[in-house]
């Protein structure tokens, strides 16, 4: 329980006043000679039972009356979960607001989303109480911290509005931790408002342990989690998984793969209309939903052949979360998928060129150029999607160019040089060549089949890496993650983690002198095609991006195209779903796929993240804007009145004693006459 006038609680010891008065009274006794001791002793014996209890109750009622009065004066606030707050006011209050798309789930009757409900209730609570010298907001969309003037201002700030972003709760807590450490704040309250989305919380991240230990070292920091733990209500979300513009003769068409996901209990199969809008032309298709949702693969929408690029959207009828009912997409003519192979060995370069020049889809255009290392300067980096580097690791300007190439979202694969290992690049360095010692060939003992270049094919079949024979391979010293390993634990394929683009190191070469990659073909071809596809994602004039800070940072003059009601400020618009254009370039910004997944982290798991910290979870319902805490002084005044009434009733003398005369002298005297 917290109090608006906690100083009044200093008077709590006054509750002992009736007991003290009672004890003093006991000490103030008068001595009197007494004759009728036999009755006194009997009375003492009789008073051990109910009478003593009655007297104790009277004392208790007096104590309670004083206590209730003091509590009433101290203006208590309801909410047992506030019990750990204590009596002193915090120096700072930090609000960590989850603005992710899933927080826009609404209570349709109240018209309030999880985010707005949490904000209102929190603002109301802080308005009533004392939030300290600093009121700080960390919103999940921007990840930035900013000071807020008053709790009421929270309701109107753009930084507390809806967004299509995902949240990163550990990162927000780290920001809060950094602030508390930097400012050496004393007592602080951290309020986290979230729907416990599994993706947002990333409960299995190793960051939690470190963060918990760091918070444990701070004294007086209380964590409150305003959590929506109810299972998701019936909600549909939709997403365009893939969009392609194909030309067919003189006509053109868009081919879309649309996924509709069902969250909550849909109550069996039903049909739902999906509205497509392209170039201001709407069309509706009904899909049948089962318990998981529906998938609309290869939906064709004819378009004007002259329309080489543009945008569209797919919409669902309104439901609990309005933010996941519309998905924007952009399209453009597929780019030429260009690869540059840098190798001094013509034989090896040719092997790469052959594998990369043949497209998976005949409608795509592939181009693969092989150049020696000394002609690197001729590379047109802008139009290239994949760089194959088979040679000593470069340094200097070339290394910088490759780094920039990767940062722009392209892919690079390094293959070992026959001789000189070269410099260290991307924290990786080639070691010595190894031969299959004592064995004819080195076998692949393990590879990652669930994702990345060596993932299983769509049918679920694994790539035939078991049959790959490797005669020579080069060791690699790298901080990267192996995607495939030989049986002596030497990695065959390694991926170096990057924020953008992709960097791979392959330990052997495709020619027969080194391995059967080229001769067997399948693994080699698929691996290179996948790398090329990944590298060419950014080559297209139209790109799909997840909402978040920096998604529109690559160009300066993005113009908002859709939706028409997009009024977000320049700094905020990259956080909202929409379509943006600059010249030939199009970008569709949507919520991330993780936000469509309504899976929440179990509350027990979330609670465990705060083990050892001062932490209280407050479960709230969406749409319930009732006060988190309300003043209770009336209850205490009523309690005081009741205690006084009870005290008065208990203090009343027994009626029998009052009415019955003890001695009837008239009858007692001369009784035998």
């Amino acid at each position, binding site marked *: 329980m917290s109090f608006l006038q906690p100083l009044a609680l200093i008077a709590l010891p006054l509750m002992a006043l009736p007991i003290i008065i009672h004890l003093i*009274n006991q000490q103030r006794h008068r001595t*009197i*000679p007494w*004759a009728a001791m*036999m009755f006194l002793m009997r*009375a003492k014996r*009789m008073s051990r039972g109910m009478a003593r209890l009655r007297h104790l109750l009277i004392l208790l009622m007096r104590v309670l009356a004083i206590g209730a009065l003091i509590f009433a004066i101290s203006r208590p606030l309801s909410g047992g979960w506030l019990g750990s707050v204590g009596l002193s006011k915090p120096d700072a209050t930090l609000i960590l607001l989850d603005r992710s798309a899933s927080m826009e789930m609404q209570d349709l009757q109240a018209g309030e989303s999880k985010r707005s409900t949490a904000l209102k209730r929190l603002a109301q609570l802080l308005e009533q109480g004392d939030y300290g010298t600093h009121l700080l907001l960390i919103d999940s969309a921007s990840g930035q911290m900013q000071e807020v003037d008053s709790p009421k201002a929270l309701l109107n700030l753009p930084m507390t509005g809806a967004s299509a972003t995902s949240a990163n709760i550990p990162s927000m807590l780290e920001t809060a931790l950094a602030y508390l450490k930097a400012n050496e704040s004393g007592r602080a309250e951290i309020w986290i408002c979230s729907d416990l989305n599994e993706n947002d919380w990333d409960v299995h991240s190793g960051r939690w342990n470190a963060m918990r230990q760091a918070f444990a070292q701070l004294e007086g920091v209380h964590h409150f989690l305003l959590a929506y733990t109810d299972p998701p209500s019936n909600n549909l979300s939709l997403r365009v998984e893939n969009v392609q513009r194909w030309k067919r003769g003189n006509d053109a068409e868009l081919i879309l793969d649309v996924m509709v996901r069902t969250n909550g209990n849909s109550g069996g199969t039903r049909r739902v209309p999906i509205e497509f809008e392209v170039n201001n032309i709407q069309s509706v298709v009904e899909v049948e939903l089962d318990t998981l949702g529906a998938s609309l693969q290869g939906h064709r929408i004819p378009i004007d052949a002259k329309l080489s690029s543009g945008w569209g959207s797919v919409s669902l009828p309104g439901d609990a979360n309005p933010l996941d009912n519309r998905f924007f997409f952009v399209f453009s003519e597929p780019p030429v998928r260009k690869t540059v192979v840098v190798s001094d060995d013509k034989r090896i370069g040719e092997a790469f060129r052959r594998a990369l020049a043949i497209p998976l889809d005949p409608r795509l255009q592939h181009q693969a150029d092989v150049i020696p290392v000394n002609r690197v300067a001729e590379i047109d980096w802008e139009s290239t999607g994949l760089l194959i580097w088979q040679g000593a690791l470069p340094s200097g300007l070339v290394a910088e160019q490759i780094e920039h190439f990767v940062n722009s979202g392209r892919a690079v694969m390094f293959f070992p040089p026959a001789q000189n290992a070269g410099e260290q690049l991307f924290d990786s360095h080639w070691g010595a060549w190894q031969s299959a010692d004592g064995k004819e060939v080195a076998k692949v003992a393990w590879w990652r089949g669930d994702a990345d270049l060596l993932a299983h094919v769509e049918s679920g079949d694994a790539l035939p890496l078991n049959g790959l024979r490797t005669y020579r391979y080069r060791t690699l010293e790298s901080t990267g993650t192996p995607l495939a390993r030989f049986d002596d634990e030497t990695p065959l394929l390694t991926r170096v983690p990057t924020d953008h683009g992709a960097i791979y190191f392959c330990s052997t070469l495709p020619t027969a002198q080194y391995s059967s990659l080229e001769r067997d073909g399948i693994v080699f071809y698929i691996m290179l095609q996948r790398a090329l596809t990944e590298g060419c994602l950014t080559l297209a004039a139209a790109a799909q991006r997840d909402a978040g800070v920096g998604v529109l940072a690559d160009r300066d003059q993005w113009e908002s195209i859709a939706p028409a009601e997009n009024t977000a400020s320049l700094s905020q618009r990259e956080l909202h779903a929409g379509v943006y254009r600059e010249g030939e370039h199009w970008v569709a910004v949507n919520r991330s796929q993780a936000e469509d997944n309504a899976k929440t982290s179990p509350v027990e798991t979330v609670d465990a993240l705060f083990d050892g910290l001062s932490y209280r979870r407050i479960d709230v319902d969406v749409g319930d804007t009732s006060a988190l805490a309300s003043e209770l002084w009336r209850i205490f005044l009523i309690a005081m009145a009741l205690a006084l009434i009870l005290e008065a009733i208990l203090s009343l003398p027994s009626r029998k004693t009052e009415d019955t005369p003890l001695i009837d002298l008239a009858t007692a*005297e001369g009784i035998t006459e």
Partner: protein
Amino acid sequence: MLQLKRDYLNQKVLERLSTLQLHARLPMVGSVSGKHRSPIRGSSLEFAEYRKYVPGDDTRRLDWRAYARNDRYYIKEFEADTNLRMCLVVDTSGSMDFTDNGNPAGTDAESGLSKLDYARRVAGTLAYIAALQGDAVGLYCAGQAFQKEIPPKRSATHLSVVLDELGTMEASGETGLADVLHETAERIPQRALIVVISDLFIEPETVRNCFEHLRFRKHDVAVFHLMEQNELDFEFDRPMRFVDMEGGEPILADPTVIGAQYRRAMEIYLESMDEVIRDTEVDYHRIQIHENYGDVLARFLLGRTPKRHK
């Protein structure tokens, strides 16, 4: 009239009560002629009955008129009047020192009477009245610390001894009333009027045994049960340390807590005492010591007047 020098006797009360007589409710057996009925036939003017003459009877008591009418010999018998033995049994336990304002007697000159003072006045006045009408008076002080026994005698000097003893007796220690009553019942050979003056702070069943013993010995028993208003009401507004006047352990108690229980215990005791009185048929008077003892004694004497005189 005897010359009185005892300050606990009030001349006006004595003069007022001297017009009344102390009567025994039961026939008494006395050594001399007196004003009280005797179970033995005597020569008083009060006719009792006729009975047939048997040889050996005094011929002077033959009723010749009856003989003339019936030709048979009848002896005419008359009631015998005799004197009274009155034994005053005064409780001299420490509790009798309790006064009508809750203070021990003698601590404050202006304070009221103690129970013992009251007992002194009642006993002295009764002794005087009895002596005045020629009855024998005895005194028994019933305290474990202070015991005194003065057997009943008729002489004026004996009255003086009794009155002196009344004037000097003190209240202290525990009560010895039960023992004294049993001893008195056994020691006094003939019927007597036993006047008990006490606060009777002993168990009602003990009192019952004493009274039944006295009644069994044909004694006429009168009881003055002295109480004080405070003892009945138990009205105190703060915790008190009650010191036992009979030497027991003091008790610290809050009357606001145990007041109801005290009054309930008192009520039960008085009800039990009433039952004892009803069963033993003693002449019982419950007195509050702020009452005028002259009025109390007048009521007592008038109550004992034989009905045939009314």
